[in-house]
């Protein structure tokens, strides 16, 4: 037998297309799924479809939500003059876990990266401007310290500053509790770049 039976081959093929999954692990996962009790397999398949059917982007902030407007945007206790812009929903969740930030969010759904065919118009950038016109006076940019993160930050700053909003960026550098001696050089360089007066 040179090939898998057709349905199994199809599953392997679909799994292989997932990010970070090679042919070997796709095969392993497919066999695992195939051996699941019918109910469990159905639960898995339904979960995928439910996400597709029910999850959409929040009308205000482009965060993933199962409502028209997401939980954060509906929260009336939020400070509506300040907005934190992040690349992905998981960045928003990370920020929320700190319990430190009580303003609004905006999720770009990615970072500018021409190599991945992501130019500014592919991101949820257009949607920022009406929100800024609608009472937001301060914007915090919270992106990873990668080339793409930095470039996206520069892009937004150059487009937002002329509108008179305050634009700041989260600091990148030493981890809290980190030791200077053990920090890698890139971290130290970044910490130096983002130093501030005391």
């Amino acid at each position: 037998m040179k090939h898998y039976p057709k349905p199994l081959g199809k599953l392997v093929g679909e799994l292989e297309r997932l990010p970070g999954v090679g042919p070997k692990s796709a095969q392993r996962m497919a066999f695992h799924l195939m051996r699941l009790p019918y109910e469990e397999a159905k639960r898995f398949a339904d979960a995928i479809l439910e996400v597709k059917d029910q999850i959409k982007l929040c009308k205000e902030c482009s965060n993933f939500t199962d409502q028209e407007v997401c939980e954060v945007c509906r929260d009336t206790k939020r400070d509506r003059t300040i907005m934190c812009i992040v690349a992905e929903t998981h960045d928003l969740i990370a920020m929320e876990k700190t319990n430190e930030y009580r303003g609004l969010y905006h999720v770009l759904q990615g970072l500018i990266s021409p190599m991945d065919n992501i130019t500014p118009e592919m991101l949820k950038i257009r949607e920022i401007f009406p929100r800024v016109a609608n009472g937001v006076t301060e914007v915090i940019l919270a992106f990873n310290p990668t080339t793409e993160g930095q470039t996206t930050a520069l892009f937004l700053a150059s487009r937002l500053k002329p509108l008179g909003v305050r634009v700041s960026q989260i600091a990148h550098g030493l981890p809290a509790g980190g030791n200077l001696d053990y920090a890698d050089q890139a971290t130290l360089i970044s910490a130096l770049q983002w130093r501030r007066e005391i």
Partner: protein
Amino acid sequence: MRVRYLKLNQFRNYPSLELHPGEGVNILYGQNAQGKTNVLEALSLLATTRSLRASRESELIFRGGDVARVMADVVRECQGDVDLEVSVFQTDKKEVKINGSKRGRVVDILGQFNAVFFGSIDLVIVMGEPADRRHYLNIEISQISPRYVYDLGHYKRVLAQRNRLLKELRDRPRPPKELGLDVWNEQLINYGAPIIEKRRFYLERLAPLANQVHRALTDGKENLEIRYLPSVRLPKPAELSTLSTAVVDNSMIRETNRETQYLTEIQDATPASESAPQTRVESPLSDTEAIAAAFREQMAEMGLEEARRGVTLLGPQRDDIGFFIDGAETRLYGSQGQQRTATLALKLAEFQLIQDYVGEPPVMLLDDVMSDLDDNRRAHLLEWVRRRCQTFITCTSLRPFPKEILAEATTFQVANGVVTPDVRRKTRNSRILAEKEANKPETASESVEIAS
């Protein structure tokens, strides 16, 4: 700086190797293709994180092995002794350890151990393509500036992204600003300007040293001029300081005697928006800022040409270095001897530069120079390294070495992946010396030339 102990594991043709080198000249001798150069390559890997010859780093792994490992115990005067380890995996991935603790990034090992390699492959610096010369610059500057590595990494990424965007604009013309080209321009300048500045800084210091050495090697008959040929036309010399302080790295932060330099850099780096505009006008721009301004201006002059062609036309990726002997370009008009001499001069100058920078001499790695250089230059080189630094020399025979060198040197015989120290070295050396004495006709002419 010297290596007290070197250990290789599954590295090239060595299943394992332990070496206790001497403090001065170490000679590895044996037939060709026995693994002499591999020892130098291991040391070079510790200094640069790069293989000397492999196109893929996994070629460094012993046939059938999983991981190639190089470990060294390095004695340092300025920063204290250190244990270094570099591992190379089948995936071409590398891992470094400093004093036994694993570091997140391979480049963190740069600056821990400094070595200067000289061998026939270095001829490409003078003879090869501009890309070979840029590669040389990148490796050498990385050894003394971690910041350079950081900027270079970002720059390459920005360049790739910008080129992709320019291609897009070429194929489907649109207002460039809509696609954010203005921001990629700024990023190219942000990361490119410090690279240009470091290259200028490095070559400006290297050039006079290299000329000094070249003159010494040619009995004052020839002058070597090394010129930085940047793609971005530099601002007029008057606008650039000649004693720039632009190189920042950890060793500067550590060393108090360089603290003032570091503080100057901090002030220079203050973005224009943070400082009062009046003082800004009066004080001269820092070098990197002046270069950034020139870069920005020349990029603007090009207008839409880059978008028309779909590629970045300006920046460090198009830099070159020119070598001129008495005004004539060495690559085109130099004799083979001149090209070798210029390369050697460059390497010895590099040695001095690193020594000035680090505060102690780096380790010298000389690959097969005994057969590549003429007697005169060979003698000069041996005299130069003698008592100056720890040196590793590979050669096929001990014969060409003068007595004084052999008397002091530590010698190792290399045969088929086995390195055997000449234990009773003195005896052995005296035997070789005796052999040389007996073999008058060949050695006589040599010793005359060495003496002259």
